[in-house]
């Protein structure tokens, strides 16, 4: 019953808002280049379907590659930090600097260094920089959160550092890591969009570029269609990662348990 309401109530709100939107646009005869109604947006979506899907594929590709790269790099760096306090103390400040510097400000440099002939690689690098930090932070905290007594116990049975890492530290870190990955998934998409914006005309071919282009041509309905696709992609990434989190933690972690 509650699950049904969870689905129906937001849908009802959507129908209400879209209806009111359409009604208002028709009633006041708002020009389509200022605010198109939902029906006009749907038409623009249908008309540009294949080109929008190409753009989505491009942005999604960059996002996923960046997310994957950030995950692998974040986990490896966190593991290195957990094995050496010295390394962590030396390098963590730089990770923070990378995090707090706005990516829009670094993006032109990266585009120049990587070169516009490798535009995709440049976009992936920019998006990965944005997604990297939450994964590093989550994994680092998680690896440190292991029960000291459990580690002592393992040492009592002659466990090596590798065994302690694999059998105790990494499983302990999993919930923290997944939480970081959920944040990073959304950030990778934002990073991909920002990178496309900076890359500008003629090179990028993703959804962000379609938004810029549609805006320049005053094709506001197409702009809305691309925007809606972006939002849905973001929701989908979040949902997929939430599902992964639930599936991995369902047997044991408080966050994934349903109470009777």
């Amino acid at each position, binding site marked *: 019953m509650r699950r049904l309401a969870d689905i129906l109530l937001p849908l009802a709100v959507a129908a209400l808002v879209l209806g009111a939107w359409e009604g208002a646009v028709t009633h006041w005869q708002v020009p389509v280049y200022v605010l198109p109604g939902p029906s006009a947006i749907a038409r623009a979506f249908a008309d540009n379907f294949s080109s929008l899907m190409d753009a989505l594929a491009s942005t999604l590709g960059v996002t996923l590659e960046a997310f994957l790269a950030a995950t692998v790099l974040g986990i490896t760096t966190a593991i290195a930090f957990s094995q050496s306090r010295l390394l962590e103390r030396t390098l963590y400040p730089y990770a923070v600097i990378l995090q707090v510097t706005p990516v829009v400000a670094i993006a032109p440099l990266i585009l120049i260094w990587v070169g516009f002939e490798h535009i995709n690689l440049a976009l992936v690098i920019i998006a990965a920089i944005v997604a990297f930090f939450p994964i590093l932070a989550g994994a680092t905290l998680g690896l440190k959160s292991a029960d000291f*007594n459990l580690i002592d116990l393992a040492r009592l049975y002659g466990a090596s550092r590798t065994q302690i890492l694999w*059998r105790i530290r990494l*499983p302990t870190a999993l919930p923290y890591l997944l939480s970081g990955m959920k944040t990073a998934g959304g950030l990778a998409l934002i990073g991909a969009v920002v990178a496309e914006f900076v890359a500008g005309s003629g090179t990028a071919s993703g959804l962000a570029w379609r938004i810029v282009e549609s805006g320049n041509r005053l094709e506001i309905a197409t702009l809305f269609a691309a925007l809606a696709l972006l939002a849905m992609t973001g929701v989908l990434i979040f949902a997929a990662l939430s599902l992964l989190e639930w599936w991995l933690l369902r*047997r*044991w972690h408080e966050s994934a348990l349903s109470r009777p």
Partner: protein
Amino acid sequence: MIALQGVAKRFANGTEALRDLSFQVADGEFVSLLGPSGCGKSTALRLAAGLLEPDAGHVAYPQGKPQIGFVFQEPTLMPWTDALANARLPLDLKHVPRNEAEDRAAGALARVGLKGFERAYPRELSGGMKMRVSLARALAAEPKLLLLDEPFAALDEITRNALGNDLLRLWREDGLTVLFVTHSVSESSYLSQRVLVMTPRPGRVAKDIILPLGRDNRLSPQTIEAQRMISDALNTAMAA
């Protein structure tokens, strides 16, 4: 089995936990280490296990370092896996083949009364059952020396008594040597053969009491007499 000689330990924050702590535990003995909270009992146990190094003095194992089983005050289980995998941990760390490890861990669980709970996750078990998994994990490695750090302190009295009886049975069946840290006079009076009463911090042994025989249950006159002996020694140690 184990001998501590003139052991001292000071922590990084300057707290002097132990000073001139000496005692021995013979093969097959059940010895309680009893004292007020903060007297360094747990530190002494960690020194005995080799998890800490003493600042002065020696921890010696005259017949070589035995296989040690350790049980903490908290169950200290891995929440992400089931009871069997938890009990199997020491064997996995020692690269015992998977099948043999499973059999031995399952056997250890059965011995602590958890047959049928092999696939249960810690969160599905009660506090007493979690402690039993912890005990099974210690037994799975077939230890000669079992070190217990107030293992029953967080449990209710009924569970505590049941686990105490199980511990006595395991000690007799396996010919274990047990060093049992506690702050409970009644627990030590019933379970152990010898009680080492410790002074407040910095801890050392104030009195080494050999308890009378015939303590067949928790209320037998001999047990009550043992409690009186331990309480007297504890009061003297606290006053000194």
